[in-house]
């Protein structure tokens, strides 16, 4: 499978407070989350992002709180993948659990500029950028399975509940 999209580039240590400030979390209406996505960095981001766009970031993306709304805000804003130098641990789990494609790829920050279009070849584990092709290490098998299922909920329904006696 190959996906391509326009890049929104961010730096290191993008924390969950800037991805979605806590003041929006306690909302009965979940549709407000993508409207405030990454507001802490760029208050106009949600009006500019389009479905299929890709986030490229530096190291430690998603550090901070365990709020899963950070993943949901990004996913529901239409982002198809996040490619980062590295991810914070809880955000990484939350992303996979919600079927959001997360790729750890060393060197990605220097290979792309904001607005570039990149192509991710999931079968080959490569990313095509204007400055060349980068290889990344694919996810361990069973994480890949969770992601392919569409997230942990679907994985549970298919694998665990489906196989129960």
């Amino acid at each position: 499978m190959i996906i391509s999209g326009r890049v929104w580039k961010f730096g290191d240590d993008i924390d969950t407070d800037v991805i979605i400030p806590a003041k929006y979390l306690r909302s009965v209406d979940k549709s407000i989350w993508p409207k405030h996505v990454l507001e802490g960095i760029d208050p106009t981001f949600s009006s500019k992002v389009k479905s299929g766009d890709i986030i490229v970031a530096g190291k430690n993306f998603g550090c901070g709180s365990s709020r899963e709304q950070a993943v949901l805000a990004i996913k529901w804003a239409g982002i198809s993948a996040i490619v980062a130098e590295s991810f914070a641990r809880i955000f990484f789990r939350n992303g996979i659990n919600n079927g959001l494609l997360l790729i750890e790829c060393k060197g990605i920050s220097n290979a792309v500029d904001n607005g570039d279009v990149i192509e991710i070849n999931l079968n080959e584990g490569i990313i095509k950028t204007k400055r060349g092709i980068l290889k990344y290490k694919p996810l361990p098998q069973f994480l890949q399975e969770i992601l392919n299922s569409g997230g942990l909920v679907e994985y549970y329904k298919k694998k665990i509940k489906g196989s129960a006696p």
Partner: protein
Amino acid sequence: MIFGVYMATAIEKIISSAIGRKVYSGDFVEVPVDFAYFHDGTGPLIIDVLKEMEVNRVFSPEKIAVIFDHAAPPYNDQAATLQAKVRKFIREQNITKFHEIGEGICHQVVPEKGYVAPGMIVCGADSHTCTIGAFGLMALGMGATDMAYILATGKTWIKVPETIRIEFKGFLKKGVSSKDLILEVARILGTDGATYKVLEFTGETVKKMSQSSRMTLANMAVEMGAKTAFIEPDDKTMEFLGREGKIYSTDDGVAEIISIDSQYIDPKVAIPYKVSNVKSVTEVEGEPIDQAFLGSCTNGRYEDLLEAAKILKGRKVRARLIVVPASKTTLVKAMKDGIIDILMDSGAIIGVPGCGPCLGVHMGVLGEDEVCISTSNRNFIGRMGARSSKVYLASPQTTAASSIEGKITDPRRYLD
């Protein structure tokens, strides 16, 4: 020793015991969860995910605790509605370990009630779950979907982590606390220096310090990206919990050792907007502040209030000082011992035990360009309020001294 010769880290041993075979860092395994907890912030989403999973019953109600601490009491109707949803769930699921508004912060209440013990695998739907790694157990912070999966199955998958040992030698100087030590570690490791790893705190300084001070060390492990923290338990640990547990020690397999001579550590301040932007208080003294916050899962315990009271006794604050005890138990003890009187006489405002203004939703949110010195753990952009506000992280002593002067102040001037 159940596995014959098995030289490993304490965390590797905990996981091995839980699943009945030897594991080493890098292995992916599914582990049983001995205890799980969540709060009013993560609760509503967990309930939604369980519904999506079509799970009607949690795996074991007695192994689950729910604590209302994040927006407690609720600051608006939506927060109140979401809390009502969680209460309904708790009743339906027969979860009896439920702690209402005002009982305190989950990471404080869970050990205070003795729900956990050394050697356990504990998961919390909050990033600061690593705090209770100070009790010699494996504490894992997680998101809502992971927690829902645990509530459904009693299990979770993990990558067995490597361990970084942080060894504190010698004694702390006057006016210096475990908060200053952990800020120094943040300076050394940076915001991702411990990603996916365990920070194990050892050494004479840690052995001598109170269980509460150890919790401060463990609390901030996540700010360096750590999966969790670990401190080998002792009598103080058991006394705090009111119960015994299984003691695991690291005898091999440590990936990295960092040794710090505690006597050379001065009071530290983490300047905006990174927890690792750490400087000595002497380098930032004089920076004007609008607010001081004493509380949170990092530094809202009895000894923190006591240390602040020693500095504030007989003095008045210039910058508003918001004090939020970490638990009702903390507040009641501080009241009985006259500490609350001292704090209030100085001009402090006492809030309902819980997370307080740390996460910027209530009880002391910062306005445009306002500056706060805080004993909490995060100084990100907009963390405690407006995007242009600023948070400086410091110890209870530094925070108390700064509130007196209305500017960042070295607490050692207020100690004989």
